[in-house]
C-alpha cells in the first residue's frame, strides 16, 4: 500500500523527514520498498483559468486565453477535446518541465503563438490507471470549488507535494494496509501517541431495517452489516478526496464509490455500495454460487461462477462476487438516489481462491485474504454514511441491518520476561518491556516475571508468546541486539560417507578435465526415460509450465546432450562435461531418488595444437577415462557388455557391470538423436552414466599395504586369431583362467582385422606379465603356462595362436 506522509500527519506527529522515516519503518516493521514524491522533476506547472476558448475551424485545436495569475492572460493552443471556457486547468508555462523530463517552450502551432501547454494528468506523471475516466483522453479540469487560484503551483492541490511510502508488507502485517493501521505502526516506531478518532453517528432518517431481509451464511461471512442512505446526489468527488485515492493508486470514480474506497484506505475495511433498487424484492442472501450461475463484474468481465465462490444475491441472482468485486447489475449509477452500504468480513481463503480463479484480484480481495480488523465493521459503515452525508447530500436512515454478527474474543497472550530475554539474548527490565508495549498501545499486566498482554483486534497477527518476542525485539531494535556466536557443546561437523564419496568422484572428474554442468531436473516425458536401461514409472508434475518441463528425469545424460546442443549451436564443439545429480522415479508406488553421475565428450583429445595431434574423442578414449576413475576408486571385477539402451548407438554401447551387477552404461549417443537435433547433426558424442549409490556398494573398505615386488616379472607376447564375433573380453577371460595366479597383468597390444587375414577373422595380440611374489620365476614354468593358455584358446574359442 502507498501510505501518504501528509495523511499520516492527521494521526501522528511526524518530526522525522520522509526518507528517514522510511528507513526506520523498514528496520522496525515493514519494508518500505520506495518513497515516491510525485512532484519530483516537475517545474512551472500552475493553475490556469480558461477565460476564452475558440475552436479553430478545420482542426481539432482550440485557441485559449488563460489567466495564469499574470498581468495579462496568455494564449495557449490546446488540442484536447474537453478544453472549454471557464475551466480551471493545469498549465505548463514556458520553461516548464513535465513528465519524462520533457521541456515545454513557447512556440507556434499552425502559425499561432502558444505560450505553454494545458496538461492532462498523464502528462505530468500520473499513471493511466488512476486518472479519472473523464480526464483520461483529455486535459484535467479542477472540480468546481477547488481551493486553487490562477498562477498557483498545482502540486499541493493535486497531492503531488506529498511523499508516498510504499509499504511492501509481509502477509502477517496486513494491519498496515490502512491509514489507521499504518499510523499505529509508525507511532510505535517513532514513539509518538496516535490519534484515531471514534465515530459518532446520529441518523437523520427513519429505521429501514425491516424493509430488507438478509439471509447470510455466517461461515462464509462471519460479519455482514448494511446501512441505507437516501437522497444521494452522484457527482464528482471533491479534490481532497480524489488526491487521497490516486496517491494510493486508486482511480476516482464518483462520490459514492470514492467514499467506499476512501473508507477502505482509512480503516482497512473493504466496503461496497449497491444501488438500493437492486433489492426491490426485499431480499438479500449471502451464499455459495450455484454451478451454472454467471455474473458480469463492474469491470465488464463476465465470469462463470464456481460453487466455491461466495456471492451476494438479490434473493434470486448474484449481484456481487463477495469480497472481490460488485456486479454490473447492482452498480451505483448517475441516477441512483438510494444506496445500500455493505461492510462485511468474508472468509479469506474463499475470497483469495475466487480472485485467483477469475484472475480478478482487487484491493478488497487482497485485504480479505490477508485478514482484516473484525472490530472495524461498524465504524467503517458509519464513517462511510457520514461522509456521504457531507459529500453526496445523503440522508442516513436509522439502523444497521446485521445479516451476521460473529464476535471474536479479545486475545490475551501470557509470557515471561525471562523467556523474552532468553530468546532475544537481551537483559531488558520489566519496565523497558512494558514501555515498548505502551508504544504499541497494548495493555499489559505484570506479576513478577509474568507478563500478560491484551492484544487489540487490529493486530490479529499476534496470538502466541513468540509473537510478543518479535514485537519487543523489533521495537527494541534489531540493531541494538548483541551480535555473537552460539556457545554450545562442541559438535563434529562434516559430511556423511556417501556424500564424501560423491564429492570425491566430482573432484576426480574435474581433475580429469571435465567441466561441471547443472541441468534442470524437469524434462519432457520422452527425454526423461531415454538413456535408461530399466525405465521405471515416471514422476510427473500435475500442472507443468510447459511440456518440455513436465517429468522428472530418470537419467542425467539428457541434460548434457541439451548442453551439447546449446554449445554446438554457438560453435563450441570441444566439450567435456560432467554432472552429478539425482534421477527420480515412481517405482513400486513410491518416489525414489538416485544419485548419478554422467559425462559427455565431443571433439578432440587435445585442444587445437601446432603439432597437429588431432586424435578425436572416441569410445576408447572415454572408456579409458572411466577406467581411470574405477582404478582410482579401487573398483575391480568390472565387465562391459555390448548392450542396447534407448538414445545410445546400438552397436557402440556397453552396459557396465561390477561384480555382476549393472551400474551404468558407456557409449556413443545415437545417430537417431543427433541427426534430429539440428546443431548436433553429424557429431559424435560419447559419454557414460553411473548410478553412484549402486557403485558405492563395491568400494573397498580399507587398504592393506604390500611391499613392492622383490623378484623380477617376465613378459610374453601372444597373438591370437579368432572369429570377428569373439569379444576381447572372452579371449582375456580364457587367458586369465588358463594362465593361473602368476599372471599379474594382461594388456591388449594390437588389434587387426583386414585384408591379410581370412574373411571373418581378426587378430588380437596380448602381452602377459607373470610374477611370483615369493621367488624368481623359471622359464620352464612360464612356458608351461603359455602352453596351457594356447591350448585353452584353441579348444575353447577355436582360436589359432601364433
Amino acid at each position: 500500500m502507498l501510505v501518504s506522509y501528509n495523511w499520516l500527519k492527521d494521526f501522528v506527529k511526524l518530526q522525522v523527514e520522509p526518507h528517514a522515516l522510511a528507513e526506520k519503518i523498514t528496520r522496525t516493521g515493514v519494508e518500505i520498498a520506495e518513497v515516491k514524491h510525485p512532484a519530483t522533476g516537475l517545474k512551472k506547472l500552475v493553475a490556469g483559468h480558461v477565460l476564452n476558448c475558440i475552436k479553430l475551424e478545420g482542426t481539432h485545436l482550440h485557441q485559449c486565453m488563460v489567466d495564469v495569475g499574470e498581468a495579462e492572460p496568455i494564449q495557449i493552443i490546446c488540442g484536447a477535446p474537453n478544453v472549454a471556457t471557464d475551466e480551471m486547468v493545469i498549465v505548463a508555462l514556458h520553461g516548464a518541465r513535465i513528465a519524462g523530463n520533457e521541456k515545454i517552450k513557447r512556440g507556434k502551432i499552425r502559425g499561432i503563438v502558444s505560450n505553454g501547454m494545458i496538461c492532462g494528468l498523464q502528462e505530468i506523471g500520473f499513471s493511466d490507471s488512476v486518472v479519472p475516466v473523464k480526464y483520461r483522453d483529455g486535459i484535467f479540469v479542477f472540480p468546481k470549488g477547488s481551493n486553487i487560484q490562477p498562477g498557483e503551483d498545482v502540486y499541493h492541490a493535486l497531492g503531488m507535494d506529498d511523499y508516498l511510502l510504499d509499504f511492501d508488507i509481509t502477509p502477517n502485517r496486513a494491519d498496515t494496509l490502512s491509514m489507521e493501521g499504518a499510523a499505529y505502526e509508525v507511532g510505535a516506531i517513532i514513539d509518538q501517541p496516535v490519534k484515531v478518532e471514534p465515530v459518532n453517528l446520529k441518523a437523520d432518517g427513519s429505521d429501514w431495517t425491516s424493509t430488507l431481509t438478509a439471509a447470510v451464511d455466517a461461515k462464509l461471512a462471519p460479519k455482514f452489516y448494511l446501512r441505507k442512505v437516501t437522497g444521494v446526489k452522484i457527482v464528482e468527488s471533491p479534490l481532497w478526496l480524489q488526491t487521497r485515492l490516486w496517491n494510493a493508486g486508486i482511480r476516482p470514480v464518483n462520490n459514492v464509490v470514492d467514499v467506499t474506497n476512501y473508507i477502505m484506505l482509512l480503516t482497512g475495511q473493504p466496503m461496497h455500495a449497491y444501488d438500493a433498487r437492486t433489492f426491490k424484492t426485499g431480499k438479500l442472501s449471502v451464499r455459495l454460487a450455484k454451478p451454472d450461475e454467471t455474473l458480469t463484474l463492474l469491470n465488464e468481465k463476465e465470469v462463470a461462477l464456481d460453487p466455491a465462490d461466495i456471492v451476494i444475491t438479490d434473493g434470486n441472482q448474484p449481484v456481487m462476487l463477495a469480497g472481490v468485486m460488485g456486479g454490473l447489475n447492482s452498480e451505483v449509477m448517475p441516477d441512483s438516489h438510494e444506496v445500500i452500504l455493505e461492510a462485511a468480513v468474508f472468509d479469506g481463503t474463499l475470497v483469495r481462491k475466487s480472485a485467483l480463479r477469475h484472475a480478478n484480484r482487487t484491493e478488497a480481495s487482497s485485504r480479505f485474504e490477508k485478514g482484516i480488523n473484525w472490530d472495524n465493521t461498524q465504524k467503517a459503515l458509519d464513517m462511510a454514511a457520514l461522509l456521504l452525508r457531507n459529500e453526496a447530500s445523503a440522508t442516513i436512515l436509522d439502523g444497521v441491518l446485521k445479516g451476521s454478527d460473529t464476535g471474536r474474543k479479545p486475545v490475551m497472550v501470557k509470557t515471561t520476561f525471562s523467556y523474552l530475554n532468553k530468546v532475544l539474548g537481551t537483559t531488558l527490565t520489566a519496565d523497558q518491556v512494558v514501555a515498548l508495549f505502551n508504544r504499541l498501545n497494548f495493555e499489559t499486566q505484570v506479576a513478577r516475571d509474568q507478563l500478560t498482554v491484551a492484544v487489540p483486534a487490529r493486530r490479529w497477527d499476534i496470538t502466541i508468546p513468540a509473537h510478543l518476542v518479535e514485537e519487543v525485539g523489533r521495537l527494541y531494535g534489531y540493531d541494538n541486539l548483541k551480535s555473537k556466536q552460539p556457545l554450545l557443546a562442541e559438535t563434529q561437523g562434516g559430511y556423511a560417507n556417501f556424500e564424501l564419496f560423491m564429492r570425491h568422484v566430482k573432484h576426480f572428474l574435474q581433475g580429469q578435465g571435465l567441466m561441471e554442468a547443472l541441468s534442470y531436473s524437469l524434462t519432457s516425458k520422452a527425454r526423461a526415460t531415454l538413456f535408461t536401461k530399466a525405465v521405471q514409472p515416471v514422476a510427473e508434475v500435475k500442472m507443468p509450465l510447459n511440456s518440455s518441463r513436465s517429468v522428472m528425469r530418470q537419467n542425467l545424460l539428457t541434460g548434457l546432450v541439451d548442453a551439447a546442443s546449446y554449445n554446438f549451436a554457438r560453435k563450441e564443439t570441444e566439450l567435456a562435461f560432467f554432472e552429478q545429480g539425482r534421477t527420480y522415479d515412481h517405482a513400486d508406488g513410491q518416489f525414489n531418488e538416485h544419485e548419478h553421475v554422467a559425462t559427455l565428450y565431443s571433439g578432440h583429445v587435445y585442444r587445437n595444437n601446432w603439432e597437429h595431434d588431432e586424435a578425436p574423442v572416441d569410445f576408447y578414449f572415454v572408456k579409458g577415462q572411466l577406467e581411470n576413475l574405477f582404478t582410482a576408486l579401487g573398483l575391480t571385477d568390472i565387465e562391459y557388455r555390448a548392450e542396447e539402451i534407448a538414445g545410445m548407438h546400438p552397436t557402440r554401447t556397453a552396459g557396465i557391470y561390477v561384480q555382476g551387477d549393472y551400474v551404468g552404461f558407456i557409449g556413443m549417443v545415437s545417430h537417431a538423436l543427433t541427426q534430429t537435433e539440428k546443431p548436433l547433426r553429424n557429431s559424435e558424442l560419447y559419454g557414460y552414466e553411473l548410478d553412484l549409490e549402486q557403485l558405492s556398494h563395491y568400494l573397498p573398505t580399507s587398504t592393506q599395504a604390500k611391499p613392492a615386488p622383490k623378484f623380477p616379472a617376465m613378459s610374453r607376447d601372444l597373438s591370437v586369431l579368432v572369429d570377428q564375433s569373439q569379444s576381447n573380453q572372452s579371449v582375456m577371460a580364457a587367458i586369465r583362467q588358463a594362465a593361473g595366479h602368476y599372471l599379474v597383468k594382461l594388456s591388449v597390444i594390437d588389434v587387426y582385422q583386414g585384408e591379410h587375414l581370412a574373411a571373418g577373422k581378426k587378430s588380437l595380440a596380448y602381452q602377459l606379465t607373470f610374477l611370483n611374489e615369493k621367488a624368481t620365476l623359471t622359464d620352464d614354468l612360464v612356458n608351461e603356462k603359455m602352453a596351457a593358455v594356447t591350448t585353452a584358446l584353441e579348444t575353447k574359442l577355436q582360436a589359432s595362436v601364433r
Partner: protein
Amino acid sequence: MDLLEKLDQLRGRGLEKINAAADTQKLNDVRVELVGKKGALTEILHAMREVAPERRRQVGQLVNEVRDLFNEQLAQARYDLAQALVAQKLAAEKIDVTLPGKRLSLGAKHPVYLILDDLEALFIGLGYQVVQGPEIETDHYCFEMMNLPKDHPARDMQETFYIDNENLLRSQTSGDQARVLEKHDFSQGPLKMVGPGKVYRRDDDDATHSHQFMQMEGLVMDRNVSMSDLKGTLEMIAKHLFGADRETRLRPSYFPFTEPSVEMDVSCFNCDGKGCSICKETGWIEVLGAGMVHPNVLENAGIDSNVYGGFAFGLGLDRFAILKYGVDDIRDFYTNDVRFLAQFRQEEK
C-alpha cells in the same frame, strides 16, 4: 738412426696425428698406430736389443715417458671429441620453449557449486553436519510440519509443482529441518545442520526467475540459542561471502516456520550504499531470510518448545552467485554455455 732420435721424431709425429684425428674412429687408428700391440712404440721396444746395455735403461725410461704422453693426449682428445659430440647433439635438440604447450581439456566447477562448497566448508568448520533430504517431498514435511496450514498461499498449485495430492517438488529446503528435528537426540548434544539442495517453484523462467534453483537450509537448536546468536551467525555469513567491509541490517519479515522472522540486507557492493540500479536506489541488497524456529515447528516434531529453541536460516545459492559474480541472468546457470562456465576457475579455494 739412433733410437733416441727415432723416439724424438715419433713423439713429434704422434702428437701431430693425435691432434689431427677428427673423430673417434680416426683417433682409435692413431692409438693403434702409436701405442697398440704392433704400434710404433712397441716396435721401438723390440729394437732395444740393438741398444747398448748401459743405455737401455735410459731409452726404456724415455719410451715410457712417450707412451704416457701419448696416452694422456689420446684421453684428452677422446674427451674433447665426446664433448664436441654432446654439444652438437644438444644444438640439434634445441627447441623453441616459447611455443605453446599441448593441452588436454581443463575442468571447472559450476559457479553455484563454488558458493555451495565454500559455505559448506565454512559451516563444517563451525561444527555443522551437512544433511541431504528428498527433492520429491511430501506435503507433510514440506508444509504441514513447517507450520504452513492447509490453505496457505504457498501451497497453491500456482506456486508449487504438485505430483499428486500428497507429493510435490519441494519449494524450499525447510523440509530437511522437520526431518532432522524429528530424529535428533538432544542428549547427544546440540543440533547444528545445513541442508543444501535443489528446490522448485512454478515460476516461468526469465532473467530473475527460475523454476529450479539451489538453497541451503541452516538450523541450530539447543536449550539456550538466542536471536543474538542468529544475528552474529548471519553477519558472519554475509561478511564471509560479500566482504568484511559490508554493512548489514536486519529487517522484520515473515516466514511461517520462524517467529520472529528477519531478512538480512547488505550494503550494496556496487554503489557502497549510495543507491544505484542494482540496489533499486535503496543502498541495500537483500541476501537471506532467517528467524527463531516457530514453536509450532518444534511441537510438530515432538520437541518441547519451552525447553528447546533455536534459529534457522535459508540461503539462496543462485542468488549469492548472481550477486557475488555479477551475473545478470539466472538462466546462465542452467544453459551450461562453456564460455560462461569457464570464467570461474580462479574462484576455487
